[in-house]
């Protein structure tokens, strides 16, 4: 059996907005079953990179592939992706259930009602399923948004600061959800600036600074405390890296 191509692949991806280079020559790959946590300060380009991988933006150079296929023009490839971003992408006037069912139908899920119930239950928000989203607290909205993103059992999940607004219970539900997704061989790309939450689910860690990936490491061999300190140093001091510094792993 041929080895499956990595679920998420970015090769030499750059994106400029007018004069500003938001993402600068990024290459990464995330095989099925792995979770890459992408850390970085505000403005590092993490969200832009995520949007590029999700197909919402076209790269200025380079290619982005999901399951071996470019996303933008391939509907089947897009059907494998779930996106969780800063914004909830929900419709406030509709109930939680209606929002998640709508998403299920959009992806052609076989039994949208049942799938929606399952997703809401997994995120522990089923008891509020028939409340309009605008009446839900920010944390509960976030849970519904996550349920919406995974209702179609995606093989690739892209998450942008998903723990924002979640309380302990919500955070635990999300972590459990991500772990079961990984167990089901989904590939995850998790953007966050919370090192602890990121390392709790990730198999690999990367740091992004000023549009470039400056650190990449395997979590199995990572010392969390060292990583946390190095990360703080990088972020707090800006670009603590001399140009031409060898890139690779921190251990």
């Amino acid at each position, binding site marked *: 059996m041929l080895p499956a191509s990595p679920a998420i692949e970015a090769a*030499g991806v750059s994106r*400029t*907005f*007018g*004069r*500003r*280079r938001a993402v*600068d*020559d990024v*290459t*990464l*790959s995330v095989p099925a079953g792995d979770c*890459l946590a992408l850390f970085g300060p505000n403005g590092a380009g993490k969200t832009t990179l995520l949007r590029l991988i999700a197909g919402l933006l076209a790269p*200025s150079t380079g290619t982005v592939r999901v399951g071996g296929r470019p996303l933008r023009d391939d509907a089947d490839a897009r059907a494998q992706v779930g996106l969780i971003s800063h914004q909830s992408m929900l419709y406030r006037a509709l109930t939680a259930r209606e929002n998640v069912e709508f998403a299920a139908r959009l992806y052609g899920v076989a039994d949208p009602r049942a799938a929606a119930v399952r997703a809401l239950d997994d995120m522990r928000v089923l008891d509020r399923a028939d409340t309009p989203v605008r009446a839900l607290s920010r944390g509960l909205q976030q849970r519904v948004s996550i349920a919406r993103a995974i209702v179609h059992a995606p093989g690739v999940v892209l998450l942008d600061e998903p723990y924002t607004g979640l309380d302990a219970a919500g955070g635990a539900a999300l972590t459990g959800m991500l772990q079961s997704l990984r167990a089901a061989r989904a590939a995850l790309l998790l953007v966050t600036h919370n090192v602890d939450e990121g390392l709790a689910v990730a198999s*690999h860690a*990367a740091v992004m600074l*000023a*549009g*470039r*990936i400056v650190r*990449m*490491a*395997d979590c*199995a*061999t990572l010392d969390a405390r060292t990583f946390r300190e190095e990360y703080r140093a990088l972020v707090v001091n800006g670009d603590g890296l001399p*140009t031409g510094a060898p*890139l*690779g*792993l921190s*251990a």
Partner: protein
Amino acid sequence: MTTIPVSNGTSNSGSSGRSNGTPAPAAPRAVFDWFSAVAALGVVGIYIRAIYFTPIERLQGAAQKIYYLHVPAALAAYIAISITALMSIVYLWLHDERADRLAEAGAEVGLVFLTVVLTSGPLWGHRIWGAWWAWWDMRLTLTLFLWFIVAAYLIVRGGVEEAAMRGRYSAVLAILAALLIPFIHLSVYLFQARLHPMPVVLKPGEPSLPPEMLTTFLLAFAAFALLCIAFIRARYRVGLLRDLAAELAA
């Protein structure tokens, strides 16, 4: 220790990072604009000829001479707007910012000439028909709607900050507007054909023109076409300098 390879691409950060890879255009040197000077002289020459050396039309008197301004201005407007429409298609196809800049120049210049048509029309009309506005005059009515469309185009350009989106939106609008023109033409024709049978107005300058008038007309067309191109060139340069300045300032 397993790692995921990270490539360190050729460093280009810190440079201006032009998104579509075109080389930065060279800043134009400050040079005397011969083209515009010649065009301006041409227009002056035409007016001298029109006012002093062309016979006065029998039916309408001296007022008829405004037509040497009105009709050539319409031609200039159509040239400018056609450039905008054409460059819009080119831009959507090639994503070349020069096409977008040229489209913008064409639209502004076109608006100016359209305004000339719309102001000279009523001035003449009031003299000849006693009415300020002639809805049955197809060209005038069409020009009015064109004016609104070009104004909308320029306002859209003003309302979008990101350059690539601005180019795309303007191009889409220009192409849709090009599709719209025949429909406006058709509906205005239908409107006035039923309610105002086309008046037998001897539009001066149409059939059987004495040769001096015809020559003046043709020369006026040429002069205005030249002026239109001159304006577009100048406006393009303004746009280019503006874009370069913005790039340097960033």
